């Protein structure tokens, strides 16, 4: 267990995971709707504030898993309740805890019916999502990974738009079918590891090449659907468009990250040889996703759909950064995951706010509203610029790192991905142009109220913070990324490591 730094004393990670669940349970007994909203708000805010301790207490000089907890759960199968975070998962955990209060506050008036059930679903989602990023036991990981399906399904199926039935079923079937083979791969790894589900123990083992390929393919299917990578992306636009605002935000900001997190946490260190030999194909798939997402977004008239397809493109940049397998690329990819969570989440919140007023998501119905709702348009402009990776915003840093690493490795792929960046500018500016200037405007439209400004303001803060001073975010991941690359390099060098590689 030398890869864990067991946290003596307070169990921060468990508290974070179970706080929302306990909150959801108490929520069952709260009578009035406003009380329920306030309570959900309180629970998510407390969780978010509590998670700051992770950042302040994080030791960025080690690649070991910190704040770890290890409790035996099902001894007959050697399943343990093991939690821990490193530089890769830290930011994702923080992203999750900070996005959730915004989801609650963003649904304050959007959700009118069955508030209690809605908030319970959101809180259960938070528990499962945090657990997925913290789990260091593969059985625990899989349980949380799948457990998320039901609340997310209900979020779309009950509070969704007109085609909610289709979208929710498609989401559920796609994700479940993808992860079935993941389960088989997990069990195979468990047996190959002398009956241990411990994720760190599975890393850097000397698995035969063909075994690695099969495991990698099983991983790939599950994670590529979750990302979603081209050509497994078709569930995403449907789910995004039909989900309520909070559902879209959770989906875009956190759920999609689980796929790329899976690549980082499992594919690279557990099946490094397969990653090296199959990586180039995934790079091309990423390029396809970037271009396809960009072109399709260009043709959308529905704002939510536009953002959904832009997600496909943005996540393409993330997978591109991951599979170049160098430090810049990986760090850019991780940062880009966070950026996409912030920016796309914010854009979905913006669209949701307008939908509450106009009950339409069509660009044409919002033409020229800049004169009527100046505050809203300011926010929309900031987030759109961030989405197209305008310098001084967060996405610029991430995308720049990814493209820089691309040019240092493979100029052809880098060149092929560049039009994606231009397309992003094209479709975002097209959206802005229509919403800002073209058309008569809508004089009856009310501008954002204080609650809505409070929802978006923190995100603006992060857009510029990461855009201007990304070091605090990059610093925490340096050691973990180096270690991860070391694991891949070792496998490439053919070093037969039986035990764990020595940790810095």
């Amino acid at each position: 267990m030398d890869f864990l730094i067991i946290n003596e004393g307070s169990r921060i990670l468990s508290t974070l995971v179970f706080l929302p669940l306990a909150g959801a349970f108490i929520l069952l007994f709260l009578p009035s709707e406003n009380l329920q909203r306030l309570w959900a708000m309180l629970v998510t805010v407390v969780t978010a504030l509590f998670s700051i301790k992770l950042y302040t207490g994080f030791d960025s000089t080690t690649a070991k898993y910190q704040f770890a907890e290890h409790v035996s759960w099902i001894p007959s199968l050697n399943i343990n309740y093991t939690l821990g975070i490193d530089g890769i998962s830290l930011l994702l955990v923080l992203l999750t805890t900070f996005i959730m209060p915004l989801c609650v506050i963003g649904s304050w008036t959007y959700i009118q019916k069955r508030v209690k059930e809605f908030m319970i679903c959101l809180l259960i989602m938070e528990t499962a999502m945090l657990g997925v990023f913290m789990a260091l036991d593969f059985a625990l990981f899989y349980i949380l990974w799948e457990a998320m399906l039901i609340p997310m399904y209900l979020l779309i199926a009950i509070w969704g738009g007109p085609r909610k039935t289709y979208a929710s079923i498609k989401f559920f079937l796609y994700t479940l079918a993808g992860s079935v083979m993941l389960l088989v791969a997990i069990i195979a790894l468990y047996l190959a590891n002398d009956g241990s589900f411990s994720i760190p123990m599975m890393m850097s083992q000397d698995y035969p090449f063909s075994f690695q390929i099969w495991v990698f393919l099983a991983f790939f299917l599950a994670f590529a659907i979750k990302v979603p990578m081209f050509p497994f992306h078709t569930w995403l636009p449907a789910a995004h468009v039909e989900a309520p605002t909070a559902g879209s935000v959770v989906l875009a900001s956190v759920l999609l990250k689980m796929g790329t997190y899976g690549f980082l946490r499992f594919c690279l260190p557990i099946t490094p040889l397969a990653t090296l030999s199959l990586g180039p194909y995934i790079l091309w798939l990423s390029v396809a996703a970037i271009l396809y997402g960009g072109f399709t977004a260009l043709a959308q008239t529905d704002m939510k759909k536009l953002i959904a397809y832009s997600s496909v493109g943005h996540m393409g940049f993330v997978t591109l950064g991951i599979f170049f397998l160098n430090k810049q690329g990986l760090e850019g990819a991780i940062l880009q995951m966070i950026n996409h969570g912030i920016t796309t989440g914010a854009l979905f919140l913006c669209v949701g706010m307008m939908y509450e007023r106009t009950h339409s998501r069509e660009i044409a119905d919002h033409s020229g509203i800049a004169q009527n709702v100046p505050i809203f348009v300011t926010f929309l402009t900031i987030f759109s610029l961030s989405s197209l990776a305008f310098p001084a915003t967060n996405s610029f840093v991430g995308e720049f790192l990814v493209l820089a690493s691309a040019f240092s490795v493979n100029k052809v792929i880098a060149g092929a991905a560049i039009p994606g960046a231009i397309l992003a500018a094209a479709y975002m500016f097209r959206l802005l142009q229509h919403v800002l200037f073209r058309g008569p405007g809508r004089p009856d439209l009310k501008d954002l109220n204080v609650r809505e400004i409070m929802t978006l303001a923190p995100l603006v803060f992060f857009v510029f913070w990461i855009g201007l001073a990304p070091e605090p975010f990059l610093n925490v991941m340096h050691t973990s990324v180096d270690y991860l690359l070391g694991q891949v390099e070792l496998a490439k060098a053919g070093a037969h490591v039986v035990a764990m590689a020595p940790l810095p």
Partner: protein
Amino acid sequence: MLFIPELLLLIGSLVLFGVSLGEDKAKTAHNVALGLSAVVSLLCLATLGQKGSLFFDAYSIDLFSQLFKLGIALGMMAVIIFGSQLKGITVKMKPEYYLFMVLSSLGLMMLVSSVELLSLFVALELSSYALYLMVPMRDDHSGVRIQMEAAIKYILFGVVATGTMLYGMSYIYGLTGTTYMNVLVPKMHELAGNPTAMLAIALFMSGFFYKLAVFPFHFWVPDVYQGASNATTAFIASVPKLGAVALLIRITTLVAPDAGESIVMLLMVCAVCSMFYGNLSALVQTDVKRMLGFSGIAHAGFVLLGLLTLDTVGFATSMYYISGYLFMNLACFLVICSVSQNGENVSIDDLSGLYKRAPLLALTLLVGMMALAGIPPFVGFMGKFMLLTGALKAGHLTLVILAALNTAIAIYYYLSVVRVAFTKAPEGRPDVSVDVLTRVVSVALIVIIIVMGVVPKPILSLATSAVKSIL
């Protein structure tokens, strides 16, 4: 003391017989049956740790049998509670109906304790004949006598299965000269690899394949599920399967762990065929009970995954899985029984907008269906996960992949039921009223399904020591 749960059931059935002689005694019969099942459940709990043997060693009381008895008693109690109005049964017949239900449970309880072939056979027939009679007791609403067709199919298939089982038993007696299981086990192990012995075991198993609805003994399932009244189906679909798994575990111990390739192969083929047949057929069903029937065939295939590893852990996992299945299935049938207005069958469309009409029932349905589909954190997932792990440990990679594929197929039809309940509008269907006791049962089932899934440790260790006690 050892025989007290069974004895009480026997006395109870006599009381019910007395009740059935009077006029208009449905209410009394219900109360007697309910009280009886509650007391028997408590007694089973109280006698959980006891050990002993009765009737010239033909009847053994150990942890294994007592655990199954507890499951049977709880299952019976749940069915009596949520089927309380017995909407599909003629008023005149209600006392008799309870009488047969109690007798069937008595037979099953004796079955799991029987360790001698003839007493085993008698116990099995006691439970089966009571069930055969429960099927045609349905009200004839439709006029097409669908329940008669079901009953005929049930009894004919049942008798054939019993016949093959007896045939297998005769071989076993011929090979070993004894009918006592504890003597049989070592003698059969010596005969490992002997084709006649393998054939005998396979034939012996077939009787319980029928009860568990394993392919190719599943043909009765859809029609009986559809034709019998809702409460009867709830009972047939859950409680006798416990007995079947108990006996299949006992029979599998006859196979020597190192020389059972042919039996393992047989179980594997049956498992794969059951899963594919059940899941693919369930995809196109519109009647919820029929769908659950096909899903039951698929689940029976899953249970076999635990048996074919031929080791303690595998048997214990099967026990865990079938006890989980009992509760998941009861949760689904609770909803069916409550939604059905006058005891008619429930089509999937009848569940439209259930979450507006009866939120608790919708939640129960969600938990039950998702547990059957094998979504964590419910017991169905944990059971499946352990069965797959055990089977892969035993080296059956292809089997595990096929089983995993089946999970993906199955999700569709479970989800489409949930979809109708949660996304369709009620379209004028009335609200469903649920009485207090049924509410308690449905909350209890939800809690059990979640707790068994999240904390499987105590039940697994109990099951493991139970299996060890019979080996």
